[in-house]
């Protein structure tokens, strides 16, 4: 366990030394959200109707873009190779990396999501469900995204490829996440949605690290 915390500390330290890594996904999230009123319509009734979907899509894209680099710097400077041959479990290192990625992208996204909600005239009763659904849904996005990132880390052209691999897998989270917010706005119970989001999270927490470790081994050896 102490090894896990040491790995987590290393990842967090690396992130806080590159503070732009924290700001960039958030700025991207805000910009994508701003495109919708500009591109479609600034009408408040329209915006409040699409708010849940737009915020979730923007969060999903922000997560997708930032997950691309989760293993890249370690791969390029060779530390990933050292992690692979070390006696410690790669599973723990991978989990620490994914948790760090979630803290930097999903967690902060959930915290600033009320700001975007306000800009989209989200009805008051929807804020709680918005924050909770993002908190429960974005860790799954980080886990699934890390699979794609691990598969493509050795390749020169990462960007578009990882979206092709990962976006279809994001669909259930998007459906249930946006569904939570919509149920919250309408004053319906949201526990069922949250339970499903939590179930998907637990499921991917069990299986995704296995796939990530296997993918990293392939990427490093090739």
């Amino acid at each position, binding site marked *: 366990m102490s090894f896990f915390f040491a790995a987590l500390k290393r990842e967090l330290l690396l992130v806080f030394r590159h503070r732009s890594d924290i700001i960039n996904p958030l700025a991207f999230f805000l910009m994508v959200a701003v495109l919708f009123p500009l591109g479609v319509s600034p009408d408040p009734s329209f915006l409040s109707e699409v708010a849940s979907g737009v915020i979730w899509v923007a969060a999903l894209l922000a997560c997708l873009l930032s997950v691309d680099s989760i293993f890249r710097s370690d791969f390029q400077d060779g530390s990933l190779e050292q992690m692979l041959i070390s006696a410690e479990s790669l599973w723990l290192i991978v989990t620490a990396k994914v948790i760090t990625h979630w803290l930097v992208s999903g967690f902060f996204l959930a915290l600033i999501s009320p700001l975007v909600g306000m800009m989209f005239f989200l009805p008051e009763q929807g804020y709680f469900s918005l924050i909770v659904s993002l908190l429960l849904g974005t860790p799954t996005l980080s886990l699934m995204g890390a*699979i794609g990132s691990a*598969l*493509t880390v*050795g*390749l020169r*052209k990462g960007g578009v*490829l990882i979206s*092709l*691999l990962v*976006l*279809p*897998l994001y*669909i*259930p989270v998007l*459906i*249930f996440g946006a*569904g939570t917010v919509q149920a919250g706005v309408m004053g319906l119970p949201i526990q069922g949605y949250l339970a499903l989001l939590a179930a*998907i999270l637990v*499921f991917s927490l069990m*299986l995704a690290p296995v*796939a990530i470790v*296997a*993918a990293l081994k*392939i*990427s490093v*050896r*090739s």
Partner: protein
Amino acid sequence: MKISMPRWFYQLASPRWFYEFTGKLLPWFGIATLVLLSVGTIWGLVFAPADYQQGNSFRIIYVHVPSSILAQSCYMLMAVAGAIGLIWKMKMAHIVAQACAPIGASIAIMSLATGAIWGKPTWGAWWVWDARLTAMLVLLFLYIGVIALQAAFENKASADKASAILSLVGLVNIPIIKYSVEWWNTLHQPATFTVTEKPAMPPEMWIPLLIMVLGFYCFFAVILMGRARVELLEREKRSDWVKQLIAKY
């Protein structure tokens, strides 16, 4: 614990044995495909009775349903072959998985296209955000992801293993995607489209459909074996038996 697999399982792993074995199978599957597809098509298009609600437009079912079923089975086969390749380090399984991806993608496109053509007269729209249509579209996206990943690697062995992992991840996700899409659809769908209740099909309608499904599976087997054989020759071109084989022509 040691699990011993039957002998034919290991024999399949040998490229040469696979090549010779499929060479013997191919003509039989080819004949079966020809017979089943022509009998099914003629029976379905000419002799089967017209639907009492949809008239003759329902006859596209004889292409649409087999291709939809096949698109899903093909993904299953691709993922299982990939898993066999990862677990038993079997080159042949990876070759089969690689051959599956483009075939499956084309069949999924065929299923979507025939669905759209059928939807226009029946629902009045080329595309409806119906759960089954959307799930098929996502399946096509999963195929595209696997194909893109295969193409991105220069090293064949890494491409095989990486796409095997991706197709397994996709296989685990397919039921989740399917049910989430179904639920999303029932929540959002305005009650404008009610798909005409399927009447219990009379045998004159479903027997040709069954023949078409079997014919599609045989057709798939022919294409799959053909693609796998070509890929196998390409990969094994340095081995002696391939050189001797080519020298004969």
